């Protein structure tokens, strides 16, 4: 039975689900169903709830998120380069160096902006 490795991944995930899901269902079935405004209040250190929960936002970290999307792509491309690094002519390594150097200024700009709280 030569199963492809990805089928094994799928089977493993199925095993995880069929062992974990019953726990959740069990907890759901066993718990009381009555609703009670005090019990159902979100946790706020024992205080009554103050206002909407989805209000405040840490917008000053938005540049980090954009940097993440950019560097995610870059890292994946660098892995293809790392795979063949040892057998690659040096001239083609410079190419990836150029690829990185192009990115230095934008990422520096993003870091600079993320440090300035008043911009966000």
């Amino acid at each position, binding site marked *: 039975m030569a199963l492809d490795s990805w089928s094994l991944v799928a089977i493993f995930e199925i095993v995880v689900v069929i062992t*974990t899901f019953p726990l959740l269902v069990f907890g759901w079935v066993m718990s009381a169903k009555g609703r009670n405004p005090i019990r*159902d209040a979100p946790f706020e250190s024992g205080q009554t709830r103050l206002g909407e*929960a989805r209000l405040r936002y840490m917008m000053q970290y938005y540049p980090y998120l954009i940097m993440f999307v950019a*560097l995610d792509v870059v890292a994946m491309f660098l892995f293809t380069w790392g795979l063949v690094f040892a057998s690659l002519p040096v001239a083609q390594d410079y190419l990836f160096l150029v690829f990185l150097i192009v990115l230095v200024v934008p990422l520096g700009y993003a870091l600079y902006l993320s*440090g300035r709280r008043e911009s966000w």
Partner: protein
Amino acid sequence: MQGLPAIQDIVNLAAKIITSRTFLEIVVFPGFLNVFVGAALLTWLERKVIARVQLRIGPLYAGMWGILQPIADGIKLLFKEMIFPELADAKLLMVCALGLMMIAAAPVVAIPFGDGLVIANMDVGLIYVFAAISLFPTLILLIGWGSNSKYSFIGGLRSLFQQVAYEIPMWLSVLGIVMLTGTLNLTDIVRAQEKLWFVVPQILGFVVFFAAVLAELERIPFDLPEAESELVMGWMTELTGAAFMVGFLAMYTKLYVMSALITALFLGGWSGPSILPQPVWFLLKTFLVATVIVIIRGAFPRVRVDILLRTGWTRLLILAFANVFVTAMLIWLGFGWFWRV
């Protein structure tokens, strides 16, 4: 008309499947039971070690040295009531808890616990592990949003930014290993360390990877998403009962898997003197790494969130790139053959 297959046949088939190597690998040893028991043991280990660090005794009564404490905790949590806040999205929370467990356990498929003792020996193993780990922020953000509580939401956002900030250094710190071995297959990477563990030539990468793993695991000194004194339990605040149990177990599964990943990538995996079989060496190293991570929790203070993010995006990133550069130098100077597979 063939008639219904006899019960004997079904039993035989079931016995054949259950005793087949693939099934045993998936369900018992490198697979699910290993992860489950490992994670449960780690919860006990953490309580015991932290207690020792703080000159307490820790769990004591359930079994020898309280080693059955995880089972007691599990049963207790299972029978607790599941309370979801009034505006929370209970179904989303449960599905996300399940998803957390799936993602946390997924990397085990590719990690070799012995020579050939791996569920799926895939060529893209390393990237597969990283891809699985990169799904965490999404689910945690969804949990933080879905529970509609301020603590959960702030914890989820912090977790998002932190994991996102440390993911890139984590990936790039491993790039050196990929350059040295020229493969993404974790079994081959471990085989390449027969002569010298990667922790020596890749010491910079190891430091970056370890710090990034600490941050990915949301552990002290980077445990801002669930800083107990400010955010109660972070994004897990509104998970209760069984959902909390699954989420909690997922985090310890992640700890176990990441320790195993550090072992496989930097500490030589299963290699060791042949007094003990290979999987035992692997498990010993894994639990050693996990213990170090736990002791760090007992010994360090917490950093501030903006410092944390800035450190991740500047120092660690630069260190990771420096590591890549050093490795490139190593290969250009002609030492690369040493670790080729």
